[in-house]
């Protein structure tokens, strides 16, 4: 058993034994409150892992509490029913709010969630018929399991019940954060466009985090309702959210144990400050400020020795120079041409960035799209990969019409894009970068992830193997555990290529892959692209580096002011008068070696 597991078992045993050891009811109460806040902080932490800070989270706590409380009071339902009901209602509310707001990002999302909680608070305060307003809702029945005999009365009973809920929460969030779902969430946070391009729908995964967080909050609320038996609109107050946010950040955001540590510490700190009476809140604010200023990674960071940090994928001995396996057979095998673009037109106001462009990419072909800056090449790429919609025309991937599909869907089909300049997940290791990109290859569903089924574990292992193979192929086998943003520019470009190759694409779109690389790095890149050519991959690339284009490509399409002006073999293009006039200029052109 690892050290980490031993510590976990010891802590768990101690926790379970506390009531038996004669700990005072008052402290048990504090621990119960800590448990409730843990559910809240864990949910907030999950959503924050996807990059969204929900400062209205307490609204879902309150919704769950009032829903459970009202169902208990008016319909006499047992908490066995009202607690899940409260959780579900809160989850639905979260889903609705998510639908409205998850298109917003960053600060906008934060501010709207605050506004949402405020609106709910005002409703709870003013809709006195339903909620009794500021007077509060009293008389919520305590926990009973359908018969009188099993009514929970003592603190100890509630303590064990919240332990069950907290345990379930810990398991769920641990599974989510350390699996491919956690990688997907972090990918959305670190580089959303790249995540979409790897088959990860930012909207869906953020929504998953949001609904899970809200269900947890609702469950916490339902428990609270039957525990305290009195509810007031103050549950919706910003104060609560501040507490939760403190627990998440000071505990250690993005980690599994962070919310737990934060919940425990910041439930007890205000109690310890109780001695200070008047100065209590002031000191609490000061402590919070100091923690945020001097320990922004949270307390868990300092407990790393006990293995509390997020599990970065473990690495094995360094590998070098593997050969590339396309992993063919995954996803659609395109019939006919791999990719065909028909009469695409994109207008910005009166200007046509792309004007009636058509091209065909044959199977196994390497086709270059060249043209002066502003010719419309990146716009064409954006249309093909779903990041932009065209005003006219259609895009076909094999036999399927993919016009207008969202980027993650197109990536799921096997059409993968490597972005211009450097596009990586900066805060993850090189291995995690490529592993995240293997997303579309996963076949086990959410249930498998949560239960750690054998299929899921096998899939994780094989994906790790694949990721390591990809890194070795591009020559980064020795840098697996390096943080992506610490790699050199050329290495990051290679990582980008590995990310693009990881999901076993059948069509690869490379957007200026050699930009910013020196001659040596460019030759190496050419070698890599040649290396993947024979494995059933079709490649469409945009490039300015003529040596790469002429040396590597089967055919070339030339764009100027959005219009295709020439198409043919590199040799034909070199001689084409239109092309020479528009782009290559007069004077010597590099001939094929």
């Amino acid at each position: 058993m690892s050290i980490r597991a031993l510590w976990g078992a010891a802590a768990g045993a101690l926790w379970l034994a506390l009531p038996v050891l004669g700990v005072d009811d008052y402290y048990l109460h504090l621990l119960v409150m800590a448990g409730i806040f843990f559910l809240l902080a864990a949910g907030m932490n999950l959503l924050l892992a996807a990059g969204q800070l929900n400062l209205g989270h307490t609204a879902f706590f309150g919704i769950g509490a009032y829903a459970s409380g009202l169902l208990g009071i008016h319909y006499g339902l047992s908490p066995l029913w009202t607690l899940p009901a409260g959780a579900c209602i809160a989850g639905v509310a979260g889903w609705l709010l998510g639908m409205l707001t998850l298109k917003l990002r960053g600060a906008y999302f934060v501010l709207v969630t605050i506004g949402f909680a405020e609106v709910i608070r005002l409703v709870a305060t003013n809709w006195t018929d339903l909620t009794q307003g500021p007077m509060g809702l009293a008389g919520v029945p305590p926990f009973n399991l359908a018969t009188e005999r099993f009514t929970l009365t003592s603190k100890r009973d509630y303590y064990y019940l919240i332990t069950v809920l907290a345990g379930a929460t810990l398991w769920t969030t641990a599974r989510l954060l350390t699996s491919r779902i956690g990688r997907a969430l972090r990918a959305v946070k670190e580089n959303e466009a790249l995540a979409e391009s790897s088959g990860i729908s930012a909207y869906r995964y953020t929504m998953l985090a949001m609904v899970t967080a809200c269900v947890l909050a609702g469950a916490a609320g339902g428990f609270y309702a039957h525990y305290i038996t009195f509810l007031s609109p103050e549950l919706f107050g910003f104060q609560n959210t501040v507490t939760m946010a403190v627990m998440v950040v000071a505990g250690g955001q993005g980690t599994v144990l962070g919310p737990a540590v934060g919940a425990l510490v910041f439930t007890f700190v205000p109690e310890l400050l109780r001695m200070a009476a008047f100065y209590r809140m002031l000191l609490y604010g000061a402590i919070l400020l100091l923690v945020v200023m001097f320990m922004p990674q949270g307390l868990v960071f300092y407990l790393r020795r006990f293995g509390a940090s997020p599990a970065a994928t473990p690495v094995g001995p360094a590998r070098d120079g593997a050969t590339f396996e396309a992993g063919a057979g995954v996803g659609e095998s395109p019939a006919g041409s791999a990719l065909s673009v028909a009469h695409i037109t994109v207008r910005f106001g009166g200007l046509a960035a792309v004007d009636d462009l058509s091209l065909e990419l044959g199977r196994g072909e390497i086709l270059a799209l060249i043209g002066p800056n502003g010719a419309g090449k990146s716009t064409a790429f954006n249309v093909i990969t779903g990041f932009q919609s065209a005003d006219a025309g259609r895009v076909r991937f094999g036999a399927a019409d993919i016009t207008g599909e969202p980027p993650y869907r197109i990536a799921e089909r096997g059409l993968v894009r490597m972005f211009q300049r450097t596009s990586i997940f900066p805060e993850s290791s090189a291995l995690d970068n490529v592993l995240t990109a293997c997303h579309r290859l996963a076949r086990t569903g959410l249930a498998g992830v949560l239960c750690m089924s054998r299929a899921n574990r096998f899939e994780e292992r094989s994906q790790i193997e694949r990721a390591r193979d990809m890194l070795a192929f591009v020559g980064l086998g020795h840098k697996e555990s390096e943080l992506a943003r610490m790699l050199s520019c050329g290495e990051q470009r290679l990582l980008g290529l590995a990310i693009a190759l990881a999901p076993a694409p059948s069509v690869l779109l490379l957007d200026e892959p050699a930009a910013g690389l020196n001659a040596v790095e460019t030759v190496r890149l050419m070698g890599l692209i040649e290396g993947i050519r024979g494995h059933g991959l079709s490649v469409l690339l945009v490039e300015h580096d003529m040596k790469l284009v002429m040396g590597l490509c089967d055919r070339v399409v030339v764009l100027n002011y959005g219009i295709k002006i020439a198409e043919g073999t590199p040799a034909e293009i070199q001689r084409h008068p239109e092309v020479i006039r528009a782009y290559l200029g007069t004077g010597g052109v590099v001939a094929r070696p």
Partner: protein
Amino acid sequence: MLAELVQHVVNGLILGGGYALMGIGLTLIFGIMRVVNFAHGELFMLGAFFLYTLFSLWGLNFFAASLLAVAGVAVVGALVERLILRRLRDQPIEIPMLAMVALSVIIQNAAILIWDPSPKTIRHPFSPVPLTLGPIHVVAIRVFAGAVAVALIAGAHLFIQKTRLGRAMRATFQDTDMARLSGVDVDRIYMFTFAFGAALAGASGALLGAVFWVYPAMGDLAALKSFAVVIMGGLGNFLGAIVGGLLLGVAESLGAGYISSGYKDAIGFVLIILLLLWRPQGLFGKKGLAR
């Protein structure tokens, strides 16, 4: 009927002027420093309390006290930037946000300890007899508040557009690195921006505190509303904050008058949510500016 409507609108515009001042400060701070200032409401509150202390407690002349109050809040803002925000500049956006939340807890509770929680009125030197302009009746203090708000907004606009420092601020807003390369002392700009935003919030607090009343928690609702204003106008958009502030003030006034005063505070938030559904970037914001 019409007179009543005009009355509500006029009241709303005056209130909106205060919101606009808050909004401008907040949007400048976000636009230039990328910080969501959760302590903005407390700066608002400090402006009111400084005025109360200088004028009602220490007996200074009302106008001098107002000026000093605003200056005081500016100093507080400069200190906050220098001592707290400067350290947190490289952290992800949540960290300065939470630091400001913590600061707001500290300031609000300090205010409760220094002055007590009971609401206070500022016995300003203006006559309580309403002035009559056609069908509209406005108390002199409100006219004063409205006029000062307009002057400050115009002054802020001129400052940012016409002065060298204002130009440096705009440069920093558009591209921090280029500003540095052009010789702008970005550290100084950040400190000044925060102090400037704080001063505007403090002025708004002093004005609205004189019109209504002064109590330690007054910043809470003001902060939430200024967030609403800034979202409506688009984060970082000066003109948007002005329009948003006026719109919110008028909407609230009309809402309180015709619908219900209990829910009037909710109106702003409902408006934002509806607006953002239609235009996720706000009324004037540009797409993709949120991060």
